[in-house]
């Protein structure tokens, strides 16, 4: 069988008005710096860009399929400026490669390789003329990109994670020099892939730093536009970094937050129902309490075991409660910081130190409920112009370095509130409203529910809600109780007038 392969590069990129030609920019240098955490991976890619045409002002970034799947948060900025540029998502690119294979001279088999690149574009604040340069920074946070390897560990083993990514940073423009640097937070890198047969470079491809906690891949010189499928098939490779990690990998499987606003008590009650999961290596063998106590006594805690958690809660709170399915958990300590309205300094958080009922080993779950009361003066304001109240509710409690997979925030407004207007910092996956009935309610309270997926510490925002409470609604509660009491008096009233004697 004689086979001939003809590569036909049909680069039919659908050029919408937003995507410019690929000849308008050139990358003089691309440096990707990856900070390897536990559950979260922070990527910072710096593009030194040179314009090749006059008036170039739309720059396009390309993401690989692996990056697109795991990237949770993305921000693009001009280096040195703090205001982010707005990213426009163009989705999967429409490029493809046609591969015609001729078998036996007359059977043609066509193989079409579709592109797996995703494009995002930014509009530069100032259009660049020919040979003008700019530095752009693209920051992303990736979730679920690391996994424990080996997947099982005994109670006193070290914890090691693996991170997979692609060798080259893609760009639809030519790149003169490119390098990628992986860093951990001071933990040693155990092994890293040494790719073979890589073009665009002379000498060694991967070099480990002196401290052992950083690896640099590159520099790669003179890359052509790399986001098309032909380049990807020929040159792109997967590289894995295997590194040690010394903190427990926490993930919050579900977070249910209920914020209840009370106007009679001037109080905002926030209650979190949290399902915590240790995403580290699963426990091999049985849990030995003796081993655990020995570790605590000899001060050599295992890196994948969670015994204590310190949470940052808002300032000015009181009456915090912490219970789980068994009952109240008393092993907690709340250090309260006065809020701004109570005369404290702004920008400080109360600290709650929790010890879960049992230590969390790899693969173990723990669910608990945490709640507190805070004065409504810190959160709500009165808009005299429109006669309404504006309240702010924080979306989640920050669990440092972990991802909240499924979050639901329910805000319960005072009874019979009307004209509700909400503003969320980033769009929820779903939004609904319902009625919630609790103590001393007659018609129930309106509640708005926001659902989110995959929140990280870049998503600590605040939901703003504006609502009106007419005086009649405010007085509903005392009148309802009053009517119930009057009912009792009415029964007594009738009782006096009914004669139940058997004989006169």
């Amino acid at each position, binding site marked *: 069988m004689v086979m001939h392969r003809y590569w036909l590069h049909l680069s039919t990129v659908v050029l919408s008005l937003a995507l410019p030609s690929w000849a308008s920019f050139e990358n003089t240098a691309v440096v990707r710096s990856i900070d390897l955490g536990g559950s979260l991976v922070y990527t910072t890619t710096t593009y030194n860009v040179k314009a090749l045409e006059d008036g170039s002002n739309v720059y396009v970034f390309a993401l690989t399929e692996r990056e697109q799947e795991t990237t949770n948060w993305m921000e693009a900025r001009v280096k040195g400026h703090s205001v982010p540029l707005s990213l426009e998502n163009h989705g999967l690119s429409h490029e493809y490669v046609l591969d015609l294979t001729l078998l036996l001279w007359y059977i043609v088999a066509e193989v079409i390789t579709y592109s797996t690149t995703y494009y995002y574009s930014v509009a530069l604040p100032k259009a660049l003329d020919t040979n003008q340069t700019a530095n752009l920074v693209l920051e992303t946070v990736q979730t679920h990109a690391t996994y424990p390897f080996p997947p099982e560990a005994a109670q006193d083993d070290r914890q090691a994670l693996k991170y997979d990514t692609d060798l080259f940073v893609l760009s639809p423009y030519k790149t003169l020099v490119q390098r990628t640097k992986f860093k951990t937070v001071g933990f040693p890198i155990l092994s890293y892939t040494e790719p073979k047969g890589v073009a665009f470079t002379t000498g060694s491809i991967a070099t480990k730093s002196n401290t052992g906690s950083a690896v640099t891949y590159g520099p790669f010189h003179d890359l052509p536009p790399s986001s098309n499928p032909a380049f990807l098939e020929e040159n792109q490779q997967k590289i894995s970094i295997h590194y040690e990690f010394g903190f427990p990998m926490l993930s919050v499987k579900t977070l249910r937050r209920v914020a209840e606003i009370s106007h009679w*008590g001037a109080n905002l009650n926030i209650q979190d129902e949290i399902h915590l999961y240790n995403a580290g290596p699963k426990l091999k063998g049985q849990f030995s309490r003796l081993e655990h106590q020995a570790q605590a006594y000899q001060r050599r805690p295992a890196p994948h075991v969670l015994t204590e958690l310190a949470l940052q809660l808002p300032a000015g709170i009181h009456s915090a409660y912490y219970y789980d399915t068994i009952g109240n958990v008393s092993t907690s300590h709340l250090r309260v910081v006065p809020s701004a309205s109570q005369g404290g300094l702004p920008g400080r958080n109360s600290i709650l130190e929790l010890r879960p009922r049992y230590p969390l080993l790899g693969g173990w779950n723990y669910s608990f409920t945490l709640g507190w009361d805070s004065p409504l003066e810190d959160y709500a304001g009165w808009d005299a112009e429109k006669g309404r109240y504006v309240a702010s509710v924080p979306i989640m409690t920050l669990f440092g370095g972990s991802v909240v997979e499924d979050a639901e925030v329910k805000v319960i407004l005072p009874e019979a509130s009307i004209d509700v207007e909400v503003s969320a910092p980033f769009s929820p996956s779903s939004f609904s409203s319902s009625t919630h009935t609790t103590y001393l309610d007659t018609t129930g309270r309106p509640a708005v529910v926001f659902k989110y997926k995959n929140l990280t510490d870049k998503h600590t925002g605040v939901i703003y809600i504006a609502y009106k409470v007419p005086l009649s609604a405010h007085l509903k509660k*005392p009148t309802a109780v009053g009517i119930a009491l009057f009912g009792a008096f009415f029964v007594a009233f009738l009782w006096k007038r009914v004669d139940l004697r058997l004989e006169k």
Partner: protein
Amino acid sequence: LQQLHKTLPPFQPIIPVSLLPYLAFILLTLTFGLAFYFSTLPKGTVKESTVAILASVLGGFGTVAMFCTVGVYV
């Protein structure tokens, strides 16, 4: 809404929260006192009705204040 929220004066309840415990105590003792007085009244619709209505209104506000004092924050 975010900018608006920063500039607004903070929320002020109609009845200050620090007064609520004392208000609860006073209103509820008056309610129980009036209820006792109601039970001593002979049959006479007008007087009974006024005492009942007064006791109910005071009891309504007293109960709400009591709920807030103990921490339920209705």
